[in-house]
């Protein structure tokens, strides 16, 4: 037997058990009477819309904050750089719930608790490192002479940034956006704790449907919709950028 094929077995087994099987179970539940009913309900689509919007806003906020942070880190001297990267990752050593409670305490005095702002702020805070790390990775790999070459050929600082730096770090931008967008799309704990009753997103609905045990079919249907949105975005990105030969 061919060695190479043998090595393919573990990943295939892993994917079958942890990806294909759950998707199949979810799909079989979703395409039931209760599941299809949920798909036809306007509430489902309103929640999906809200979640998509929140995920998009959070992703953009993470990108806007993460790019300058990643940029500054990449300009630091080697030793300090390692320290700052460590600090960026540090919050992950604390449990998500603990961090969210801490944020609640922080936000309460400002009177913004139980608002959409608090919900998005919490998500932004929680997922920012997932944006910073891939961005840093991409910016750090940028040849140092690239920006100079662009300026030399007549590009203003803004043109250098948008015509050379951004396109050349696009793989990092996309990776960061994917890493933030996908988990935020299905988030429920953080928005519920910080945003209160009004910050009710698709994730909350799914969690409720499954955990209360009353309507897992509806939960499965919504899960599929969220998965489909993610896949659609990835596919769309690939279509646009393959024609430019980026991926």
């Amino acid at each position: 037997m061919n060695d190479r094929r043998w090595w393919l077995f573990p990943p295939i087994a892993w994917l079958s058990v942890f990806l294909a099987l759950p998707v199949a179970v979810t799909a079989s539940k979703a395409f039931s009477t209760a599941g299809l009913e949920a798909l036809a309900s306007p509430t489902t689509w309103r929640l999906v819309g809200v979640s998509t919007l929140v995920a998009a806003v959070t992703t953009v906020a993470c990108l806007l904050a993460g790019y300058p942070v990643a940029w500054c880190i990449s300009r630091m001297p080697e030793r300090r750089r390692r320290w700052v990267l460590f600090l960026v990752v540090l919050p992950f050593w604390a449990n998500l719930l603990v961090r969210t409670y801490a944020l609640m305490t922080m936000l309460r005095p400002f009177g913004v608790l139980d608002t959409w702002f608090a919900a998005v702020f919490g998500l932004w805070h929680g997922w920012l490192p997932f944006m910073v790390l891939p961005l840093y990775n991409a910016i750090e790999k940028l040849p140092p002479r690239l920006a100079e070459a662009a300026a030399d050929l007549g590009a203003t600082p803004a043109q250098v940034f948008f015509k050379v730096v951004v396109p050349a770090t696009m793989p990092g931008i996309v990776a960061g956006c994917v890493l933030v967008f996908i988990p935020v799309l299905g988030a429920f704990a953080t928005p519920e704790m910080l945003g209160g009753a009004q910050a009710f997103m698709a994730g909350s609905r799914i969690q409720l449907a499954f955990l209360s045990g009353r309507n897992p079919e509806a939960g499965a249907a919504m899960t599929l919709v969220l998965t489909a949105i993610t896949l659609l975005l990835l596919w769309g990105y690939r279509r646009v950028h393959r024609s430019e030969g980026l991926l």
Partner: protein
Amino acid sequence: MSSRSRLSIVAKDVVRVIDGRRILDGVSLEIREGEFFSLLGPSGCGKTTLLRCIAGFDRPDGGTLELDGVDLARVPTHRRDLNMVFQSYALFPHLDVFENVAFGLRLAGSSSIPEKVREALDLVSLAGAERRKPATLSGGEQQRVALARAIVTRPKALLLDEPLGALDLKLRKGLQVELRRIQSMLGMTFLYVTHDQDEALSMSDRIAVMDGGKVRQIGTPDAVYRRPADEFVARFVGAVNIVDREGRRVVVRPESVRLTESSDIVGAVDSVSYFGARSLLRVAVGDATWLVELPGAVGRSVHAGARVALAVDWNEAWPLPEGAS
């Protein structure tokens, strides 16, 4: 060499201090329009720093820089009508060859971009590679793209920082000739940085020899080679014998020495290095060592240990100025 005498790049007493070290220590140059001017010097002497100051990536701490009579102090990089060719090429990885070359033209809002790009790619013999990405090109090809990208906007002068440094010898020789051809065809001012004296001698109209942040000598290749201003220049630009004669220090190039029947310079051959077309002998005379260059075939017939007599063509010898180091 061009007979025009208009000046292109002028540096007056340029000083650059980094961490308390004078990286550039009062550099003055006057580069004429259309000239192929080389900066030659050992590693770390400040060549790149000077080029970066001229391009605007770095700022001098003293002195002035001018381009076509205009003081550059207040002109930002993107407004300087100069283009740089980097040793590391610095091609835009997300753009193909065509877009790399078109980059400067698009920023300038230039007309008939496809024609200009094609013309530039023809000039560097890269027609047909328009749609390839830099990552798929060889080092020599990337260097050609970098050159095309720099000349296509027809800047007033081109700054080249060891553009051939990363290439193998054969490719370098070919590109040296090509660079020179392109330069004279366009009549563009080239400021060319190298630490390879053969390259500087064979390509340049004039050479500035630098060391330790200072210019040691400016002159034609012939002047720098045969009439060096000091011992450093003499030793840096090719192999050399420096001997005492009539109380002066005198520069004698190895090719001005030949073997003879009898003379007052007699010694034992230390070693023979054979290079094909020529041979280099090291001859121990007293406690000095003489370098002697001979035609290859002649050198092959001499063996280490042999006793030889040396004849010097003193007309070709050059006394170092008094007081020069």
